[in-house]
């Protein structure tokens, strides 16, 4: 299959330039395939605005990996004001990066989403407080002012609080960590790859912070995954497969060439007029590597682990967030595959 795709790509290149370079190419090795398939147009909406969290996709696009897999990809703008799940639902994007919890919620509401690949294998959510506030373990959070993001990002901590029987004073949290830095809240939600480093970059030392990792509290919630609509998958399964293969290849390339990947990401950030901080993006890319490259026990990277999927589904059902969740095989787009 891969060979076919590569041939298709070679052929398409040929077609583009065929009139100009006909004679040259006729004598070249690339001239062999006679059939020329056009690149398939596709769109991707990431979960958030450009940053190293999505380095794999930007790198794959920039390095021509998608084109090599026969895809003419456009990465849509994202960030505040954009909803990838809505865009996916109304057909504005062929693919989207979503959290597993978001996807499950959408599925429970009847949106027929398919998880094509699970990129971030575990929860990167942290609850950070200053050491001098005396918070050491989860139970210390009881009665504290805790900053929580709105939407699905707050699910893992809420489930954790419920499991531990803790009541916190919830304070809605914005996209900055300033409320925490100024002392408006005692505990802030933070992504390991993002806000944690932002706090460090604001002059707070790591040893001044007390960090609770959600993933260490028995909450194994995989995060970013590649999703598409069931109908899109049915219409063109090869495209979806090629997209996933190219995206994973993009990630591997990004990790193997981190400096180049950073340049690509920062270029995207500048284009989007976002503050671009290399040290921060470097941290983010390194953490994404930790989160994406799976531990040996979990199998191939890019795969949604069935047990974890079930655990998340059950947890969400238990806490009344969803009534039901789809079968793993349907959810991962392989209704005919045997259970494993």
């Amino acid at each position: 299959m891969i060979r076919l795709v590569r041939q298709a790509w070679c052929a398409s290149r040929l077609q583009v330039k065929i009139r100009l370079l006909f004679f040259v190419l006729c004598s070249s090795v690339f001239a062999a395939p006679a059939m020329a398939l056009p690149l398939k147009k596709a769109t991707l909406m990431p979960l958030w605005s450009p940053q190293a969290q999505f380095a794999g996709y930007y790198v794959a696009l920039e390095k021509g990996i998608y084109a090599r897999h026969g895809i003419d990809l456009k990465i849509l703008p994202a960030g505040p004001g954009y909803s990838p799940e809505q865009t996916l639902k109304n057909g504005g994007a062929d693919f989207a990066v979503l959290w597993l919890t978001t996807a499950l919620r959408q599925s429970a509401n009847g949106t027929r989403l398919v998880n094509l690949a699970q990129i971030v294998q575990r929860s990167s959510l942290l609850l950070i407080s200053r050491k001098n506030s005396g918070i050491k373990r989860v139970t210390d959070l009881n009665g504290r002012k805790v900053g929580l993001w709105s939407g699905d990002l707050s699910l893992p901590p809420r489930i954790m609080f419920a499991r531990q029987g803790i009541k916190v004073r919830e304070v809605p949290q914005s996209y900055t960590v300033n409320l925490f830095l100024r002392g408006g809240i005692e505990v802030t939600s933070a992504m390991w790859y993002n806000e944690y480093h932002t706090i460090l970059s604001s002059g707070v030392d790591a040893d001044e912070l007390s960090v609770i990792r959600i993933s260490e509290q028995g909450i194994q919630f995989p995060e970013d995954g590649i999703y598409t609509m069931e109908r899109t998958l049915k219409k063109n399964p090869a495209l979806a497969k090629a997209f996933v293969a190219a995206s994973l290849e993009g990630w591997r390339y990004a990790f193997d060439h981190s400096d180049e990947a950073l340049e690509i990401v920062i270029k995207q950030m500048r284009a989007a007029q976002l503050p671009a901080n290399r040290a921060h993006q470097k941290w983010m890319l390194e953490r994404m590597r930790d989160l994406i490259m799976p531990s040996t026990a979990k199998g191939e990277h890019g795969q949604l682990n069935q047990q974890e999927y079930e655990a998340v589904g059950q947890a969400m059902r238990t806490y009344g967030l969803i009534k039901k969740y789809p079968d793993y095989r349907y959810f991962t787009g392989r209704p005919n595959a045997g259970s494993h």
Partner: protein
Amino acid sequence: MLVRTSIATKLVLVITLCSALIFAVILGYNYHRSRTILEQELEANARNLASSLVHRVETELVSVAKVVQGMARELETSRHTAQELNHLIKTTLEQNPELYGSTVAFEPFAFNAATRLYAPYYYRHKGGIAFSRLETAYQQLPYLYWDWYQIPRELGRMEWSEPYFDEGAGNILMSTCSVPFYGAENGRKQLKGIVTADISLESLTQLISSVKILKTGYAALLSRNGMVLAHPLKDAVMNETFFSIAEERQDPAMRELGRKMIKGESGFILYKSMVGVRSWMYYAPVRSTGWTLAVVFPEKELLENVTRLSMTMAVMGLVGILLLTAAVVSIARSITKPLRLLAAATDEIAGGNFDVELPVVSSQDEVGLLSRDFQVMQESLKEYIKNLTETTAAKERIQSELKVATDIQASLLPRLFPAFPDRPEFDIFASMDPAKEVGGDFYDFFFVDPTHLCFLIADVSGKGVPAALYMMVAKTLLKSEGQRLGEPSRILSCVNTILAEENDSCMFATVFCAILDTETGEVQFANAGHNPPLIMDGAGVRYLALQAGFVLGPMEGTNYATERLVMQPGDTLFLYTDGVTEACNHADELYGEPQLLDALQKAPREDLIALVHTIRADVAAHAAGAPQSDDVTMVAITWRGKEV
């Protein structure tokens, strides 16, 4: 081979090195001091500059804060309708040109029970004042959750927001001053909302960016999170924090510095700036916002003048040292040149050439003195050598003459033994070892008539030539008078008479004179002050007891007595001078008469030659090589009897 170091080289080395060292120390101290002074001055300047900048920023911020606080008080004192509220906000904006925008944002249902969120916002737009409603403008995230609202709300006090880009209005960097205002609800103080005023940071950052210090020195502004707000590195502004730069550079010291800054400390330090240049930085806090203002001076530019001055001084010093070296070389040459010439001349003189020309030195210094002394020395040496040559020549002549005299003297004494081989009735043997070239001792023997042998031994006072001459006279007289008179006492008297006449030099001689009758063995003898001889006969060996008599020469009219002795066949008379008995060894011990007697007793009698040689050897053994002052003379005679 050792290199011979000349005085000039030594002088040049020592003086040049010393002066270079002194100069280097002075230069180093000067550089260090100038630098310290400059740094002190710099710190003061930096502090003043930073203070004035901080003051200007602070003034603006404080005035804005006062406006917002005024609005909050106004809102707390009375309830405003929508129109009144809009009027208040708009008028405030109009009256305070430094404000960019202003809003009064209410807590849910705080404006009225029917409206959940209410936040009228006036802002400058295209030269006029535009109006907007934030509760509708912020669709994604209600204004309730924005930092400018949430932070003062949670903290319950005025807050300046972290600077941010306002995306709605031309990407202007701004900061918002937010003041919570309260109302009384059922007698309880209740938060009603937040009053804000936005200020554009463009003019502030421009003010700070416009600061130019030296060539590339600059001022920078950091936010409370360490975010770069104003800095010559445009890419860093609102992208990098002081800490992310420290992280990228892996510079923990820079991170520590940043932490001091955001804590509101101030200080003056040398560090590696964000541009990567070693720089001095003075940083001071902007109190109302918690920002940090820093004034940065590149160290290199600061020290440029000091460095240039030091370089100039170094060049001057180098030229000076070179000149000094040249001067030292020239002086050293002027000293050593005559010295070298003198040394060369000395070598010549040492080689024996006393006529070599000495260098002419006209200077009045030590070298001139030495040169002149050298000339005098050369003259003296020449004179001395001349004298020495002459003296040596004279001495050599005298020596050769003395040698002749010695030969003559020796030839005067009978030296052929056996002296009378045809006369078996007696044996005679004599020896003389002069202490000097010519001696004062002598002996003689001759026949007065065919049966009478006169033999004598004498010792002239003094030594050397005078003694030899006197001896010649005495010997000649003694022989001629002896042959004429044939009687010892008369011989001595006659000779004394002749010698005493015109004896101005007062010289004298001791003489023992004897005449042997070869037929009878009778010996007539007279003594003129000489050592008594020894007789060796059948009774043994003994000194002859005889009249001493007066020495010949000093006094006229001295009479001498003739004494007699009859020798038996085989008896031997042994005559000697005081050179024998007074022979000294190194310990100044005399040979002495007892030892002579002893030696003669042991010596063989039969052979006179052996006898004399035995005594001579014994005396020499006593002396053991010590130089003798007197001649050693011995005469031995044996009578054998008439018919042998």
